[in-house]
């Protein structure tokens, strides 16, 4: 592969990323709702439950802040990926797929585009961190890194699923049988300790998102089960697997 070819492919990655970023900038209502929803979780749900519950001497609202960040990454990333079903229906992708750029580059552009969207949303949510007194602002870069890698994994997963589905009917299924279980079993809303029934602990530990929540919670609140490097390794491995799987399915997509 010559240098010229590599430059062309990189330009292709950039082109697809650029398109996604333009779309992101235009869909202001989507950005607003993607910020408002987690804030409602934090302030309406968090205050309600927090009135009678606190975890490890931390106010419940603060405790679930890392979990809600992970939730945002989960929903934002998977739905971004799944959105290609819609792109394909509208034939927007057709003109891109016929360009002299490899499918892998297009896939990479899409993944980076999705990660950018999600990361920017997370950055906005970090601006509200001062409302949660227990959150350590110096942990934010570490948390951001982990959330970014998680986003690579989940956008890839969304694109992989989106490549398989021909219609939007699968959305509901994916949402009920994949996204919600991943969220509830991640320890985003409750601590993973010996009070949990064994079967639940088992499922939670199998869920890669648990390691995101744990790592972010460790960085921001110093409450964690696993050391940060374990979280980082698990999440990175998850991202690598999903990226490879996603790029294969995307390349085979008709």
């Amino acid at each position, binding site marked *: 592969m010559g240098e010229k070819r590599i430059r062309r492919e990189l330009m292709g990655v950039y082109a697809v990323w650029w398109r996604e970023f333009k779309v992101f900038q235009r869909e202001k209502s989507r950005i607003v709702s993607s910020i408002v929803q987690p804030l409602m979780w934090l302030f309406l749900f968090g205050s309600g439950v927090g009135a009678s519950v606190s975890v490890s001497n931390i106010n419940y609202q603060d405790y679930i802040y890392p979990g809600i960040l992970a939730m945002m990454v989960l929903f934002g990333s998977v739905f971004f990926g799944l959105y290609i079903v819609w792109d394909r229906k509208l*034939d927007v992708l057709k003109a891109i797929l016929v360009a002299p750029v490899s499918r892998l580059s297009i896939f990479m552009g899409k993944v980076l585009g999705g990660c950018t969207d999600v990361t920017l949303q997370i950055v906005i949510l970090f601006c509200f961190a001062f409302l949660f007194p227990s959150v350590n602002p110096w942990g934010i870069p570490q948390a951001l890194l982990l959330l970014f890698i998680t986003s690579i994994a989940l956008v890839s997963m969304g694109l992989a699923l989106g490549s398989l589905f021909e219609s939007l009917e699968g959305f509901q299924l994916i949402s009920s049988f994949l996204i919600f279980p991943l969220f509830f079993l991640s320890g985003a809303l409750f601590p993973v300790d010996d009070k949990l029934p064994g079967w639940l602990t088992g499922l939670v530990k199998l869920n890669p998102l648990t390691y995101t929540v744990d790592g972010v919670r460790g960085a921001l609140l110093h409450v964690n089960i696993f050391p940060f490097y374990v979280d980082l390794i698990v999440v990175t491995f998850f991202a690598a697997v999903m990226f490879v799987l996603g790029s294969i399915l995307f390349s085979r997509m008709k």
Partner: protein
Amino acid sequence: MAIIKTLALTKNYGKIEAVRSIDLNIEKGEIFGLLGPNGAGKTTTIGMLCTIVRPTSGSASIAGCDVIKEPARVRRKVGIVFQDPTLDTVLTGRENLELHARLYGIPAAIRGKRIMEMLELVDLQNRSNDLARTYSGGMRRRLELARGLLHRPAVLFLDEPTLGLDPQTRARIWEYIKKMAQTEGTTVVLTTHYMEEAQQVCGRVGIIDHGRIIELNSPDALKESMGGDMVVIKVKEPKLEEIRALPYVSEVRENDGLVEIIMKQSHLHLPDLLAHIRNVESVEIRIPTLNDVFIKLTGRDIREDSVEDSGSWVDTVARYRQRGS
């Protein structure tokens, strides 16, 4: 030199033979029309030439690049306007072209100028900063034409470029296509089932049916192959034998009380013909169209299985003829 060459190009989808052993040689600078009814294999043929569809067997090359062995090089040499609109409606007209310019690796230094040039060519420079979703059907098509030509392809493929547009817009789109082919020196391969339009634009047409090219020539030559003009006469007690004996008449048939006469140069010989027949109640003259050629070759109207029908008398007569033959 042929810029597009295919040799026994074939595509099967399971047991369905979509394209059967097509041999084509299309010259540089030509506007070539691929005509045929829905499902004849037009889109599949174009798909194979653009490397979107993998041929089952046979070979094809574009500007010397093999579509199977060097798909990336072929892709840089072709521009495509798909049958269904593929614009990114969330982007502006200019952004659509920018996206495309990057995907085709047009260097930043010349990108802006080239985009401006193409926008001017399709008269969209004033609307270039509006979102494509605000464009009319005709404007969207024009933007797609500009996008297809942006990277200076050697060959531009247009799959039904005027489908779904109103007649006025269609006429304008064809003007743009002719203008673009001229200014850019691009070879154009198009499919359409608007026969009248094909005969105005195309230098040569290939008629495709059931995946085979059954005739290939210039529109004029094809029309000449019909043997002349058709004159339909309503007359009581026609003397068919006498008409058939006339030197300029090549075919006579009776159909539902109407006499159909295929004759050469009807504008010269009609008075003489009518003098022979007498008691004529009505006369209708039809100059053959590509549609007639198509009907003669396939026994079907090209628009038969299509939802669209102009409803004009041309079609009515065509249908009528088809029933008779």
